[in-house]
């Protein structure tokens, strides 16, 4: 079975159906990018994969283990295989950059302070951001915060990396830098990666496979090349970024 397997997921909030029979697998070492408009349930999907939300029905298998059946303690054990980067970085603003990256190392390993220091420096070099250890998150730009978030996500050398809108709110140049970095980290660490974004340029750059989420289910998936050539009118409208089409009917 695949590293990540989402099977027949349903999820509603206050009666509003967000996911409606969503199923998709992610193979080991693969980079899957899920695209879709705002409010289509992309973030919800990512949160279901790491167990931050539980589905109303359906199953989430991580390395053949069904995490929907797990209690919080078992989930915490499972989450040690994950590194997750959040939309705005979600860095702990009461801590310095060093403390942020050292946080999971201090809690989940028996590393000495010297080893932790070395690992933090290594992670910051991996995201091309050396020398910012003493800064506070509020002193960093948006792009730097994302990269520190990446460094924190990879500090425990996870098997699976999740990226939640890694380039939202960044200028096109920095977005490209961040996309390059994701590809580089993916290749260097050999992780299974799931990214959600609505930035098609980034999606095509980092994906082995692109899947489109619409009305709570996957409506199209394929390699970036296949995806670009899709004849599905919804996919065409989204890829071309047109205001007219099936996605905006009734607007």
């Amino acid at each position, binding site marked *: 079975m695949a590293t990540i397997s989402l099977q027949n997921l349903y999820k509603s909030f206050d009666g509003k159906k967000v996911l409606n029979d969503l199923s998709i697998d992610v193979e080991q070492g693969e980079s899957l990018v899920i695209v879709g408009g705002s409010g289509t349930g992309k973030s919800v999907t990512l*949160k279901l994969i*790491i*167990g*931050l939300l539980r589905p109303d029905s359906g199953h989430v298998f991580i390395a053949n283990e069904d995490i929907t059946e797990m209690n*919080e303690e078992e989930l*915490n*054990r499972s*989450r*040690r295989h*994950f590194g*997750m980067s*959040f*939309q*705005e970085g*979600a*860095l*702990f*603003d*009461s801590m310095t950059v060093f403390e942020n990256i050292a*946080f*999971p190392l201090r*809690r*989940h390993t028996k590393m000495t302070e010297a080893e932790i220091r070395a690992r933090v420096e290594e992670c910051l070099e991996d995201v091309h951001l050396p020398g910012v250890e003493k800064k506070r998150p509020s002193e960093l730009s948006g792009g730097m915060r994302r990269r520190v978030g990446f460094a*924190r996500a990879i500090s425990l050398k996870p098997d699976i990396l*999740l990226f939640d809108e890694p380039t939202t709110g960044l200028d096109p140049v920095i977005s490209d830098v961040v996309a390059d970095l994701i590809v580089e980290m993916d290749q260097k660490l050999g992780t299974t990666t799931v990214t959600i974004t609505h930035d098609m340029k980034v999606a095509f750059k980092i994906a082995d496979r692109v899947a489109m989420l619409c009305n709570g289910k996957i409506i199209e998936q394929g390699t970036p090349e296949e995806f670009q050539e899709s004849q599905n009118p919804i996919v065409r409208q989204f890829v071309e970024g047109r205001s007219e089409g099936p996605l905006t009917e009734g607007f």
Partner: protein
Amino acid sequence: MITILDRIGRRFIALFEQTGIWFDALWRTIMWAFRPPYDVREWFRQMVRLGVDSIPVIFLTTMFTGMVLALQTFTGFQRVHAEQFVASVVSLAMLRELAPVLVGLMVAGRVGSSMAAEIGTMRVTEQIDALKALATEPIQYLFVPRVIAGVIMLPFLCVLGDALGIYGGYLVAVKLLNTNPVVYKQNTFQFLDMNDVYSGLIKAAVFGLILTLTGCVRGYNTTGGAEGVGRATTHAVVSASLIILLSDFFLTKILF
């Protein structure tokens, strides 16, 4: 009519729901307090923040309350020629009632609100999700150190408040109202027993639990961005103050 009943019903349901959430959080906090890892450094940080940093506020509040209590009771007792009981009233009132309640209310305003704001901001900026994603239980990392700090530090602040309140009363009675200092000191301790001290300290520890847990719960359940954080902060102070005042009656009844 139906609308009014509907509203009352909704309020009651919300009240029961909030009570359930509070006790569930209490239970989970107790459970997680005994599981490793024990973040002792964070416990001490919270103790300093809650206890040591609150000393100036407690100093002013309890000292002036002791002073005004001596002034008021002297005025009243003078009418029935019972001025000698001023010292006993001040010390009993401070130890059994005023110091724990005042400390509880002041720390709820100063620290309970900031806990709600801090945890609420963490909630709306996804930092709590980030904690979970880093395989860290938020109840253990955020609630446990704060609640432990509250339960341990409030009795210490209460002792400080007792001493300052009694000393404030002494200053007013002796320096302002020309009471005999030796007699005043004697009367201060004459009718006291250890139960008066213990009951105040037990109350303070319970109030410490209430104000920290309420701040944490309100912050943790924040929804709706900056406005939600503001709402959580206000609710934390109002709820903690109300619960402290209500539970004060029942604790007094039990500990009397």
